[in-house]
């Protein structure tokens, strides 16, 4: 088991290296560089050139890459020219917000997907199943950013049940109960909006897995043993159907990253997604590269997590 995890971790390393190279090259291809946004264009060009030389911006790309990576490993991701503060500090604040939003979204996604998928798969082609299917098709067809806007308009502005922006009410003592409740309150609407749309994949996936597993021979064996229908579902069908869902979990995280960019922008929720969006629009070069790098690492970790979960639940993957 541990061997498997260690080996899987080793495979992750080159992925991260490759990702960092790609991110770096793409950043290099963007017009302007770390300096061009910071300086007054009226300064003497030779002085600028001198500064560029001093900052290492005239070095070959691999030297620059090495510098960037070594300082990134030490936690120095550069300066944000817009916020005039270290990128690492800026991301630190935002990352926590995005983490809670993503976690809430994941939980709600599975809270919706598992009961709906199970019902739909077990009673396939009945009215219940058709209703659930109808919902999933609507979910597939509805773009997240439009749905989120409608939700914000209806529950945020119209009914006023939820706050319409930010991550916490101002003036609350951090760590106090009111502070935490305010945080939860700010997370709920964006999380529900996102979960309602992203869950349809999982519902459909679980449904087809259950319909598939229902027809497997070992289910007949279980019935022939004298297991009741509810036991057959509980012990034999569900567990085998949940495997691919566990495998899908990592991709769910990747999907979340895309989702948070939209959701945080629409709900003006100060997380990584919003930061990314603002930084792109304002050409905050060092922030964009750092955020993209972190998103990439999150995806890789998501895949890693899926594999580990899958190896825990599926004995066939545990072979040495």
């Amino acid at each position, binding site marked *: 088991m541990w061997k498997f995890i260690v080996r899987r971790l080793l495979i992750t390393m080159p992925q991260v290296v490759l990702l960092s190279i790609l991110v770096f090259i793409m950043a290099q291809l963007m017009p302007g560089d770390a300096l061009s946004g910071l300086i007054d264009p009226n300064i003497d060009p030779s002085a600028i050139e001198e500064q560029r030389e001093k900052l290492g911006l005239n070095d070959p790309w691999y030297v620059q890459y090495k510098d960037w990576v070594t300082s990134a490993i030490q936690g120095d991701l550069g300066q944000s020219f817009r916020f005039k503060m270290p990128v690492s500090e800026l991301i630190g604040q935002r990352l926590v917000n995005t983490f809670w939003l993503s976690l809430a979204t994941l939980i709600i996604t599975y809270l919706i997907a598992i009961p709906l998928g199970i019902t739909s798969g077990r009673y396939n082609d009945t009215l219940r199943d058709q209703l659930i299917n109808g919902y999933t098709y609507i979910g597939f067809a509805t773009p997240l950013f439009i749905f989120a806007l409608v939700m914000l308009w209806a529950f945020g502005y119209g009914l006023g049940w939820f706050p319409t922006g930010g991550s916490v009410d101002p003036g609350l003592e951090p760590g106090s109960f009111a502070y935490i409740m305010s945080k939860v309150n700010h997370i709920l609407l964006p999380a529900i909006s996102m979960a309602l749309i992203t869950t349809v994949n999982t519902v459909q996936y679980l449904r087809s897995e259950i319909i598939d597993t229902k027809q497997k021979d*070992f289910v007949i*064996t279980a019935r*022939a*043993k*004298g*297991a009741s229908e509810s*036991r057959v579902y509980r012990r034999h069908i569900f*567990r*085998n159907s949940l495997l691919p869902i566990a495998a899908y979990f990592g991709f769910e995280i990747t999907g979340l990253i895309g989702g948070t960019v939209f959701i945080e922008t629409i709900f003006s929720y100060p997380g990584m997604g919003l930061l990314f969006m603002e930084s792109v629009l304002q050409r905050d070069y060092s922030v964009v590269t750092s955020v993209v790098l972190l998103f990439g690492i999150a995806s890789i970790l998501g895949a890693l997590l899926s594999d580990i979960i899958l190896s825990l639940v599926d*004995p066939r993957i545990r072979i040495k």
Partner: protein
Amino acid sequence: MSNNILEIKNLKTSFRINDDYYAAVDDVSLSVNKNETLAIVGESGSGKSALAFSIMGLHTKAKIDGSIQFKGEDIVHIAAGKLNKLRGNDMAMIFQDPLTALNPLMTVEDQIGEALLLHNRQLSKTKRKERVIHLLNQVGIPRPEYTCEQYPHQLSGGMRQRVMIAIAIANKPELLIADEPTTALDVTIQAQILGLMNDLKEQMNTGVILITHDLGVVAEMADRVAVMYAGQIVEIADVYTLFQKPLHPYTRSLLNSIPAEDSVHDKLHVIQGIVPSLQNLPREGCRFKARIPWISEDAHEENPELHEVTPGHFVRCTCYQQFYFPEEKVEEESSHGTS
């Protein structure tokens, strides 16, 4: 008759295809005694497995008519809870493909243990493990303590079929249905598994229904044989009579299709045509008529019934009286010509 554990009368199992019901098992009556092996033979699609699934109540979407008396109780229209008390306890089944019939996510111990647990809630965990190890010993698995912890994918096909048998015999059933238990296994393992089944049958006094299309297996194992064609029993007899004096054209054709040792250069006999699909089954007259077109129409009965030729030997339709193989005819004629 107390010896009789299963009595099927006029069983008809129909499946729904495009709003119509088609019978895959059509008017089958048979019985099984204690410590007796009844073999059911026939080509693929002749309704053997559909019959077995009907007995076990494993069809989920079929319409079943007629009666199946098991230990004096009709189990066709039995309540699900009552049926679950019988299944796995008084009657059990071994399936064709041991590769797919075991749950890939459960250890051998859990799968055999489940069969025990379902019919004996009081059994403690340690007692259960003891029983599982005993069962694995019984089915000839070496190192049962080790195999217990293993998952199906870690076992060979023969081992998995042994585990299946262990599940089936866990509660000493009175009726054991084996649906082509050796088709997925290679020949050396086949012999071992069949030997094992025979031993267990003798030990536990179990009635066995053995479904197969391998006549070699039938000769080895069966006490009585029922030959099925297109959902009906066309001939039923004890194993010696059936092999020595087969009557029905279908039985004779099947036996004639076995390659004989001394006829290496002869062409193998092939039964013309194929088993008709469920929707295209002739529902009237002799169902085998289309595959023996050289036999005159008059030879067949209008409504073929089972006739008792000698005690215990039943044959459907009268066409057997005039049946001959086409190549025999040719030989006869040519021998007439030369003499």
